[in-house]
């Protein structure tokens, strides 16, 4: 359809001329979602591994909560984070509402349960006696956890990809907590929504294509790593 072709043409134009505004938006998207994914990796892999390896009363409930968290509607997360970050809200003193930091925070909240849940499943799927085998080789508790995480590295990589995918494409929370401020907290997804609402469909499609390309390249790199290690 003509509109889509127009959008593709516009996308190439914006990319090849390195349009400053679009470049800025793209880099911000990458930075924000990248940081959010990094945070979710650190928290998610730690918590997921910890829960997978321990037994404590109420563990079943915790696992259910983590699994439910994987389906948290991003828009609901955005709403709650906004309420917390309001000037007069409990975290208002941080003054980070309508900043990229707030977007990173909201996206981290969205991605963390995803990474945690998949990590939990991956670690639990390791052979039951592997942990004991590692301990019997003289490993300390920390060495043991590290080696188990290494053994599960392929599904953990998938977890990170899932977390990144969830936030690079997120728009509801990003608009709410970021404010979509030009040149400051506007990212690819929020810009796309805005251009669509203004009726500038060609620009919206172009931004959409750029977002897809961005997601594709990031995942291509991660997939390369994953497939290199694939069992043949």
């Amino acid at each position: 359809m003509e509109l889509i072709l127009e959008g593709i043409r516009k996308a190439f134009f914006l990319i090849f001329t390195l349009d400053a505004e679009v470049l800025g938006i793209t880099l911000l998207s990458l930075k924000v979602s990248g940081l959010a994914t990094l945070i979710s990796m650190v928290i998610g892999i730690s918590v997921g591994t910890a829960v997978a390896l321990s037994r404590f009363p109420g563990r079943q409930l915790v696992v259910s909560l983590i699994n439910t968290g994987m389906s948290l509607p991003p828009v609901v997360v955005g709403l709650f984070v906004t309420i917390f970050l309001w000037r007069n809200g409990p975290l208002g003193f941080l003054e980070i509402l309508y900043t990229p930091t707030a977007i990173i925070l909201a996206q981290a909240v969205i991605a963390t349960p995803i990474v945690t849940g998949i990590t939990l499943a991956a670690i639990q799927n390791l052979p039951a006696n592997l942990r004991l085998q590692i301990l019997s080789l003289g490993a300390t508790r920390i060495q043991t956890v590290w080696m188990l995480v290494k053994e599960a590295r392929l599904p953990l990589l998938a977890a990170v990809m899932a977390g990144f995918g969830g936030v690079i494409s997120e728009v509801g929370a990003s608009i709410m907590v970021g404010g979509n401020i030009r040149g400051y907290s506007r990212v690819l997804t929020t810009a796309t929504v805005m251009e669509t609402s203004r009726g500038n469909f060609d620009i919206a499609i172009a931004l959409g294509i750029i977002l897809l390309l961005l997601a594709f390249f990031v995942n291509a790199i991660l997939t390369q790593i994953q497939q290199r290690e694939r069992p043949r």
Partner: protein
Amino acid sequence: MSPGENPAILLKAEGLQVRRGGALVLDIPVLDVFPDQVLALIGPNGAGKSTLLLTLAGLLKPSRGRFSFNGREIDAGRGDVEYRRRIAMVFQEPLLFDATVFDNVAAGLKIRGTGREEIGRVVPRYLELFGIAHLAKRSARKLSGGEAQRTSLARAFVTKPEIIFLDEPFSALDPPTREALIGDLERILRETHTTAVASTHDQTEALRLADRMAVMNGGKIAQIGPVAEVINRPADEFVASFVGVETVLPGRVLSVSDGVFVAAVEGGEIQAVGHVRTGEGVLCCIRPEHVTLSTNVPPPGTSARNVFSGIIRTITPLGLFHRVRVDCGFDLVAYVTRQSLESLFPEEGKSVIASFKATAVHVIPRQT
């Protein structure tokens, strides 16, 4: 005796108990492991062999009890790293890491912070020892069952453990692979003078590898001692059946004379040696290796005091020899070589003379 008094004992456990869901799954009042010896644990599934091994390796926290290693008490609960670095354990599954064979075998050394150079010197030696040197660069995912278990063993031995625990290491392998590996392990254990505690439910494996044997049942040790002793003088009926005594006859002592007594069993009378009293109930255990079959009644000068005539009921080939069940009024099982069998009694239904010595009868007081 407190730990530390007798250095000749490498590992000493006292009052070990493990509870799972309220039930007592391991109950070992005392257990000694001597250096430079192999102790085999045999018993049916659920006897507690794995639980005992894990506890002694410091990997499972017992509900109560303590044990000491080389005279030093090990905090059984906290599983201290220092102790774990002096032992090694091999499981039924190889549990290899997603890496090359070389990296797997080097794992224990890397954990201890050994330098790359030294790893490069030590690991190839052990790869050689276990016959997997040609697989050094191969990914662990591409190994056969036997190759994987060899890797697991090499990984355990390379750290020069003072004691090694093996939990049915050959159960998952097919017989020819198992054969080869048992032979290699036996040789390596002796060459390296490694103390080992190994569990198995294959009696032959125990016989080949072990110096001492413990028969476990329901979490307890039913009998422990030198292999020959447990095999030939089982302490109770359970042990007897487990160690391969094929003929167990309940009876009652009729008369005793000078250490030799006559017991009435269903279908006949048996002469045996033992400290019994008339009227006492006994179980007479006769190992099939101790029963001789012949075509004629042996001459009166023979020392075999038990001679019975009977009919061959079944002949079952069992690898190197045959299992012959003879009906002498009671069932008597004998192991006879194929050659002997063929030259004497080719078929079932034939009559035969079966004999065994009075000293071959192992007597267990019968609990009623």
